[in-house]
């Protein structure tokens, strides 16, 4: 399923998200099961399937990380089911260090300051990864696709870190 086609968008990493949201609303209305209340069983079923596709497509294209992953899958590189491991030791060292810092948050004198500082560090690193990723995805060259896949893998680690940090922050507020 090509979600860019579904939403009638040019397949690109940099998309107009307001435009995407607008098309989502239009599509959702057009395929909504309520419109098919008096239609045949087959049309009802189709409407339910289309609605699910439209929702999946919107969630995929809305998230920059999932959008990039979708672009690569359209180019024949499937990252969602891979079980490969990465060995970039510099990157992994940094991940370990950040995980250790997450563990230390609760012992900090000002835990919220520690949380905010980590959010900033994560955001600035993610920004640099996304900048590179967006450039790599412009061409569909094999080598650029491979490098784009590496950025996506790194961003998945960052997503995990952000989830953990959000969880710790929630616990602080309790």
């Amino acid at each position, binding site marked *: 399923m090509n979600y860019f086609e579904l939403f009638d968008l040019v397949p690109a990493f940099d998309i107009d998200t307001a435009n995407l949201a607008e098309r989502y609303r239009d599509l959702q209305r057009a395929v909504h099961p309520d419109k098919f209340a008096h239609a045949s069983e087959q049309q009802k079923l189709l409407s339910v399937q289309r609605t699910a596709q439209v929702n999946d497509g919107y969630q995929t294209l809305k998230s920059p990380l999932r959008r990039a992953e979708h672009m690569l899958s359209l180019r024949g590189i499937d990252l969602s089911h891979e079980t490969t*491991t990465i060995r*970039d030791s510099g990157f992994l060292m940094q991940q*370990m260090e950040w995980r250790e810092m997450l563990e230390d948050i609760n012992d900090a004198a000002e835990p919220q300051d520690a949380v905010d500082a980590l959010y900033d560090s994560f955001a600035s690193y993610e920004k640099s990864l996304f900048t590179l990723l967006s450039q790599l995805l412009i061409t569909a060259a094999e080598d650029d696709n491979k490098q784009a896949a590496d950025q996506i893998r790194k961003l*998945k680690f960052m*997503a995990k870190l952000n989830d953990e940090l959000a969880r710790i922050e929630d616990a602080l507020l309790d």
Partner: protein
Amino acid sequence: MAYSEKVIDHYENPRNVGSFDKNDPSVVTGMVGAPACGDVMKLQLKIGANGIIEDAKFKTYGCGSAIASSSLVTEWVKGKTVEEAASIKNADIAEELALPPVKIHCSILAEDAIKAAIEEYKSKQSK
């Protein structure tokens, strides 16, 4: 999802957690990560002049299965030669811990951590 008793045992009482002094010339480090779940694993081996693994330590950030897999391999590699350790397969780890199919990648991570550490050992040897 239910963890097996062996996974729970390793998770609750992980063996050989920690780090060696990385400046110790007999210590090699394998760092690996799994993008699918964001798990990070560090395995360190202390290898004697005879090529026998004298000690092992790990540090893993991940799910129970990832922690159990790395804890288990630190026990398995001790006393083995580098070649014997290199022949440990993820299927052996998965079988021992009764990992369900969705957690097989945790055992792959542990196998790859051994390989990464041994690669560092071999590149050190050839210098």
